């Protein structure tokens, strides 16, 4: 069974704070993704990567950085957090063929006060 693990599961920070969300997958998948989920918007793609050292910009990248250090690990960085980044963040992975099947983590709830 595919496994994607996110940490922390919950995080509270203040405006201007520095936050790192971590994701590890044990699926040997090449693709990894960061999405944010907000009511009324579904999931929106922030950044994604197709391998270690690679980064691709998604649809809502402003205010976010990401880094893929290994095939397994993908990090989302908020260097100056703002209240508009309060959201539920999901990491996902998929294989190279990427026929539409993503494997998701359980989510990280971020609150920016």
């Amino acid at each position, binding site marked *: 069974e595919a496994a994607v693990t996110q940490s922390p599961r919950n995080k509270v920070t203040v405006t201007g704070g520095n936050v790192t969300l971590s994701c590890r997958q044990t699926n040997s998948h090449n693709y990894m993704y960061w999405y944010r989920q907000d009511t009324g918007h*579904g999931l929106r793609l922030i950044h994604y990567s197709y391998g270690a050292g690679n980064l691709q910009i998604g649809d809502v990248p402003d205010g976010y950085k990401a880094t893929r250090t290994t095939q397994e690990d993908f990090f989302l960085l908020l260097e100056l957090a703002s209240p508009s980044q309060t959201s539920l963040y999901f990491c996902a992975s998929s294989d190279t063929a990427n026929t539409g099947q993503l494997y998701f983590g359980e989510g990280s709830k971020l609150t920016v006060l």
Partner: protein
Amino acid sequence: TQTVSQSDAHVTVFEGDSVELRCNYSYGGSIYLSWYIQHHGHGLQFLLKYYSGNPVVQGVNGFEAEFSKSDSSFHLRKASVHWSDSAVYFCAVRRGSALGRLHFGAGTQLIVIP
């Protein structure tokens, strides 16, 4: 711009009823279509997908979806729902050439009354 539209934010049915959750997309070209389910407090789980071939695809737990090119739709159906099917359902679209760029609809919350 590629869009995915799920016209119903909420659908409420009784256990044993049939249900159809609607998904329409706007994109001309080869696409991958899929449905995901999200139970409260959890991540999304894959239900089924379509790329080519038989327009009716079967998924897990009795779900099926039908692709219609003429209607630009990929509606999800189940003949007899169970209370455990209560969840949020997301339709997703990816262009054939856009590896990695999966676009999700806003989701439909299905409430099944026991």
